Structure formats: C-alpha cells, structure tokens
C-alpha cells in the first residue's frame, strides 16, 4: 500500500528517482553519503558535506583563473625567429573571417560566455546564502545557472588544445602561454566546483531562509541536514 505524503514523517524527504521515477522517503543523509536508487542505480541525493562552502571557494578560484585565461594568450607558434600567440576569444572570433561565424559563436558560448555566466550565477546565489540571506531573484537566477552548467565545455576545449599541440608539432614549435596554465587550473577548480555543488542543499537552504523571513523565526519542521545526520539508512537491494 503506497503511503501518501501527509502521514510521512517530517524528517523524511519525498524524492522521486529522476531516471526511473521510483518514489522514496529519504531520511536525512550523512555527510558525503550518496543515496542511490535501488532499482536503476542512479544517484538520488547526496548528503551535505559543507557543499556550499566548498562550491563557493572553488567558484571564486575558478573566476580568477577564468580572468587570467582570457587575458593572456593560450598557445603560440615559434617559427623563423617569430612568435605569434592567440587568445581564447580570438579562437572564437577568427572563424567569422571564414563565414563560419555560427561555429565561432558556439565556441564563444561554450568556452567563454556560459562558463562565465554560470560562475557569476553561482557566486550571486551562494555568497548571500552563506551569510544567511536569500538573494533577490533567487529562483530565476539559480534556475538559469543550473541550466547553463552542462553547456560549459572547458574540459573538451583542453583536449582540443592538446591535440592541436601534437598536430602542429611538425610545422613549428608550439609555445604555451600564461593563459594555458590558467586554463588548466580553471579546468581543475571548475570540476571541483561542479563536483561539490549540491543543488538540493541550496534549494533547501533557500527555502529555509525564506521561511525565516516570513515567520520571523526558524521553523523546526524544515529539513535541517546538518543536525540530523545520525539516521543513516542503507537503501535495500530489492523492493
């Protein structure tokens, strides 16, 4: 008999697997514990292990790397005593010279604009939340940020850089620029930021902050992930 959510306990969170739609009453999760769907194996939720602090720190580092990666050249060629370098932005713009502006625009979006906007979006949301405020326009901005995240392709771009170094090896000497080191660092910290990002915790924290605002006090019924980590429940292997 399926229970309806009305008589589910308050400390349990109702979650549906996003890959098979199986319904769960999830107890509060311990730090860094993953709850997997026993039916299809996808990750249902992840326990909070200071995820907001970590994502915030990595995103700030990523923004600094991003600025350097864009300000300095990525790669240069040395031939006949001359050196020439290209920057990330030029790599996108150059294609429009050959009537392939559409491709250049996609390169610009996936390597520059989307990563930049998603970093700014995360900082805009996380900094106030960290200081206990719910940011203005939280919902549209956080939704927009989450939608952009999968379209940032710095990692794939790095593979392209690697291949181009090898390909040009027989034509000329390829020289790394400062931008390349920044790009490698950007890749590492942005992977760390995305790995620690736990949108579920951010939604819940934002909900709680709104509650505090409207009630003038903390609602004890809200799910508090930091204080209820003791009921670790392993999900069963079969229904």
């Amino acid at each position, binding site marked *: 008999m399926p*229970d309806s959510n009305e008589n589910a306990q308050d400390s349990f969170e109702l979650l*549906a697997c996003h890959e098979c739609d199986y319904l769960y*009453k999830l107890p509060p999760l311990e730090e860094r514990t993953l709850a997997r769907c026993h039916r299809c194996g996808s990750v249902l939720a992840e326990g909070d292990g200071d995820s907001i602090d970590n994502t915030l720190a990595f995103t700030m580092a990523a923004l600094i790397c991003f600025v350097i990666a864009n300000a300095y050249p990525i790669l240069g060629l040395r031939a006949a005593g001359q050196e020439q370098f290209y920057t990330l932005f030029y790599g996108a713009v150059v294609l429009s*010279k050959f009537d392939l502006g559409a491709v250049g625009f996609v390169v610009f979006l996936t390597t520059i604009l989307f990563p930049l906007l998603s970093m700014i979006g995360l900082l805009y949301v996380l900094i106030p939340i960290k200081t206990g405020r719910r940011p203005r326009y939280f919902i549209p901005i956080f939704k927009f940020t989450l939608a952009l995240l999968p379209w940032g392709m710095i990692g*794939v771009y790095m593979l392209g850089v690697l291949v181009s170094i090898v*390909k040009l090896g027989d034509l*000329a000497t390829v020289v790394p620029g400062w931008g390349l080191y920044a790009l490698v660092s950007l890749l590492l910290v942005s992977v760390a930021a995305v790995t620690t990002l736990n949108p579920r915790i951010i939604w819940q924290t934002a909900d709680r902050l709104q509650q505090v605002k409207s009630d003038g006090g903390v609602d004890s019924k809200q799910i508090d992930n930091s204080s209820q980590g003791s009921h670790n429940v392993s999900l069963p292997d079969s229904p």
Partner: protein
Amino acid sequence: MISKQRNYVGVSARKSGMAACHVCHLVVSLETLKDDNSCTRCHTPIHSRKVESISRTWALVCTAVILYIPANIYPIMTVSKLGQGEPNTIISGVMHLIHSGMWPLALIVFVASIIVPVGKLLVLMYLLYSVQNRSKNHPKDRTSLYRILELFGHWSMVDVFLVSILVALVDLGFIATIEPGIGVLYFGAVVIVTLFASRAFDPRLIWDVIDDDIG
C-alpha cells in the same frame, strides 16, 4: 546504525499521483497543484514525463543523422603548405594522427569524433525502439546506457574546438595556412542536435511499462 524503516514507497511517483519538478526535484502531489500546474518551489511547469519525448527525440535523431553525412563528406579544414592545399575530413584527421605515430591521441580523437556521435545516435534509436515496443528487458542496463550517453555526449565537440584553435594559431600565416571548411559547421550541428536529442529522451519511459504491470 541501520534503520528498519522502509524508505521506499513501492511505486513510481506517477502511480501515486505525484511528480518531481525537473528543475529543483521537489516532489509535488498533482492533485494539490493549482491551475497553472507549476512547481510550488521554483514555479517551473510540472510534467510527470517530458512532453512529447519520443517524437521530439526521433525528430532530433533523424536531423542529426542527416547532418552527419555532409559533416563527413566536406572537409573540416584545409591545411596549405607553400600553396598546396590538403583538405582534412574528420576521418582523414584521425588517419593523419595514426600516420604520425600518435596512437593514443588518434584513439582519443577517434572515440570523441566518431564513436561518441555515432554510438550516441545508435543507442538513442535503440532506446526509442525499445520503449515504443514496450520492452521489459534489461531496464536497468538501458537506463545505464542513457546515463553514459548524457555523460560523454559533449566530448564530440573536440573537433570543432580543434579547428578553431588551429585556425587561430596559424592565422597570421608565416608557415602555413589553415582554413576551416564547411564540414565543421555540419559536424558542430550534429553534436549540438545530438545533445538536445538525448535531453529530449525521458529514461522514465523505460520503467513505465514495468510500473504498469505492478498495478
């Protein structure tokens, strides 16, 4: 400490009259929703399943298959040394890496620019076919296939980035010139359309047949 409390409800959300918001994953009861049918937390319209998932995915898959033909016929770039041009298609780019003895790199590019896009389209067609035939076989494996698809799909963009990097580097042209070819436009389109295709597919459809049996 393991609680004895059962933590699954035993049915799909849809069977119990609920739906998860696809943006914030809040589970809402469909009955209690107001007329606008939107999530009580983030105001996104709530749909139990992605709307028109199968026909939208088919349309995008077919578009990608058609675009894949010119993407492989036309050169993605032409490398000219001392006035002699050598057009490069995606496949000849991989061959070039093999001939230069760059085996590991050739393998990476081969996987990213041929295996991933082709494999992705074939897997999507298989998943669509299996859902339309109400298959009950290996639902877990089919879900895993879909998950892998979502994870690696964007790596095919490497060829597009490669062309942009090479063209930019050699642009001032004192050793050689590299001109991008129209093939890169088609190939980029294949990658983007395929990314949208896999997002249009709803893996929960794989399980709906099984849930219908549970009752």
